[in-house]
């Protein structure tokens, strides 16, 4: 009982304890805010990438692509695994705005908009055709013309609030896309005569995925046009099939089953012409397929976590110093407690419990402060921008909307648990020293 009483009194009366609580609260506050923002950015970025490609991708990095994709899609359909499939052709092209002296190297993605909408969030990224995304390539101002969809950052500037100034209709703009068509052997299809293959499209819509690299560099065109522009040969080819699994099919399990199906399919096509193109096709879940983009952010997050381990070590050291001072200051009290029968373990528990309380209170204060700050972080940033012109991220450059501020309970639980553990660890040596103190050493400075 005395432990509880003394812990409460030490917490209330000792000013040095308040400093320890403040130090813990500050550390927790910083970690909560930075980890929430970072985790939010990474989580948001992953979700956007997931939405962009679907659950699984059967594809190749080769621009030559692979044939027989329609047969494989039939197999997938029969397997009952998939809710949506979309064959795509990825390639690169030179974009020239007709009647303007503007040329740009872009990435092109040939898609069937209806299939792509069933598999990815393509439809939701459109602006003018969001309600009828299957008509994404029909320009509103000329529905019978061949249209293309641009990544929004290629044409619209963002303001400081990360908002775009959409017009009522898409601008009437004609662009020519010029590609190098490749045959099934990977050689330029029109060598000697028609090395380049141009095609003119009308601008039909913007696509806003929220992925800077996509929105700033990608032009969607109809799948069959992409096949004509980029490929030649008797067998139609694609570079990837995006897959969305049915509800209840886990991504890892679904990907494994698709890989099995692909292996069987490849075997069955072994004698077909250009079957060697099937050998370089891989089956990957969305995360693996987009790892080149996701991994750097995850590494940054890991690095940040490592830095916070150092913050944690600092907390341990602060608590160690504070508790060492308290124990030195309380040597006589410890002697008194032992003279009235308190055991070594009991004294150890007293100071460990005290440290636990410091950690818990500090963590709660830090978390509360972090929560209050995060709840207002976008308003604070807005205020800073309005009054001082300062922004955490320049929205005209970075594809970030609001600063993420959603607190994850699991993250908070880990941070609070770590802070409490850091306090207990920091107090362990002083508590042990306190427990080991011999009462005669503390009650009598000079023995007589």
């Amino acid at each position: 009982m005395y432990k509880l009483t003394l812990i409460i009194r030490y917490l209330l009366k000792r000013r040095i304890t308040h400093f320890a609580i403040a130090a813990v609260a500050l550390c927790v506050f910083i970690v909560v805010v930075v980890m929430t923002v970072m985790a939010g950015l990474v989580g948001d970025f992953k979700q956007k990438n997931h939405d962009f490609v679907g659950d699984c991708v059967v594809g190749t990095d080769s621009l030559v692509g692979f044939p027989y994709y329609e047969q494989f899609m039939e197999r997938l359909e029969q397997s009952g695994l998939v809710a949506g499939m979309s064959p795509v052709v990825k390639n690169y092209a030179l974009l020239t705005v007709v009647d303007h002296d503007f040329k740009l190297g872009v990435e092109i993605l040939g898609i069937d908009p209806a299939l792509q909408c069933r598999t990815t969030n393509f439809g939701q990224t459109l602006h003018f055709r969001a309600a009828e995304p299957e008509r994404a390539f029909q320009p509103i101002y000329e529905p019978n013309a061949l249209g293309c969809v641009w990544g929004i950052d290629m044409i619209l500037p963002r303001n400081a609030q990360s908002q775009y100034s959409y017009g009522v209709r898409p601008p009437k703009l004609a662009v020519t896309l010029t590609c190098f068509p490749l045959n099934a052997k990977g050689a330029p299809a029109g060598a000697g005569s028609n090395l380049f293959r141009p095609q003119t499209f009308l601008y039909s819509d913007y696509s806003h995925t929220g992925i800077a690299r996509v929105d700033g560099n990608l032009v969607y065109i109809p799948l069959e046009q992409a096949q004509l522009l980029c490929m030649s040969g008797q067998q139609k080819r694609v570079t990837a099939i995006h897959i969305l699994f049915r509800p209840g099919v886990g991504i890892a399990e679904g990907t494994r089953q698709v890989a099995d199906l692909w292996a069987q399919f490849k075997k069955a096509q072994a004698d077909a012409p250009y079957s060697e193109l099937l050998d370089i096709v891989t089956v990957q879940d969305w995360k693996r397929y987009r790892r080149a983009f996701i991994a750097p952010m995850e590494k940054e997050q890991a690095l940040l976590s490592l830095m916070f381990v150092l913050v944690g070590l600092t907390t341990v050291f602060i608590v160690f110093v504070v508790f060492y001072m308290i124990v030195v200051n309380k040597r006589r009290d410890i002697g008194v407690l032992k003279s009235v029968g308190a055991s070594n373990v009991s004294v150890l528990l007293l100071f460990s419990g005290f440290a636990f309380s410091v950690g818990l209170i500090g963590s709660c204060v830090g978390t509360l402060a972090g929560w209050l700050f995060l709840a207002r972080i976008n308003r604070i940033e807005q205020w800073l921008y309005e009054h001082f012109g300062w922004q955490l991220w320049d929205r005209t450059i970075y594809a970030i909307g609001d600063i993420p501020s959603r607190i994850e309970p699991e993250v908070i639980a880990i941070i609070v648990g770590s802070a409490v553990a850091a306090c207990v660890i920091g107090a362990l040596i002083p508590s042990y020293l306190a427990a080991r103190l011999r009462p005669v050493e503390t009650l009598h400075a000079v023995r007589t």
Partner: protein
Amino acid sequence: MSQLPVILKAENVHKSYRMGATRVHVLKGADLAVREGEFVAIIGASGSGKSTFLHVLGGLDRPDKGVVSFNGRDLNRVGARELNRFRNERVGFVFQFYHLLDELSVLENVLLPAMVSRSVLGWITSRRAVRKRAEALLDQLGLRERAGHKPYQLSGGERQRVAIGRALMNEPKLLLADEPTGNLDSATGNGILNVFETLNRAGQTIVMVTHDERIARKAQRIVTLADGRARRLEA
């Protein structure tokens, strides 16, 4: 008195300490027998080892050699847990510098030994009775009105009376006092000695350490500690 049983006995107690590079042999075969209800004063010059002897008698320290027994039980042979219980239930200490906990009120300081021996649950069930006992002690010591005060708000004499209350909280058989008046003026010190006399008259066994022969005369028996041995017994 002589027919009452011996409750505390020290035989051939040796104790030495390392002070820097040298080893100081403080107790060199000290003996003492205290009967139940006795008031014994241990007197000796500064550095004679009287406080060390008192700590050994109260189980705060263990002798290097020799036997200290309480009610026939050798304190050297009991484990740490038992020794803690001994200090909590059988013996009460009063120190020269009171050693009260500043974070606790006067009442809580007196309650401390009772709190140490009880868990939270045990405390809840016995709180009323224990509190009543502490209040009665404060009443007896003339500190009823000071129950809610903090130690630093009290005078030296009041603090020492609180320390006596704390020592008596668990109704120990033996009260050990280490220079209880050493930090008080003579009038206040006499007041404390009167408290001891009153307690002793009520049957409390007391062993008091002092360097002042005048104070020691308040006891029924005086033991002089010199050269690490109890040399002379006085009635």
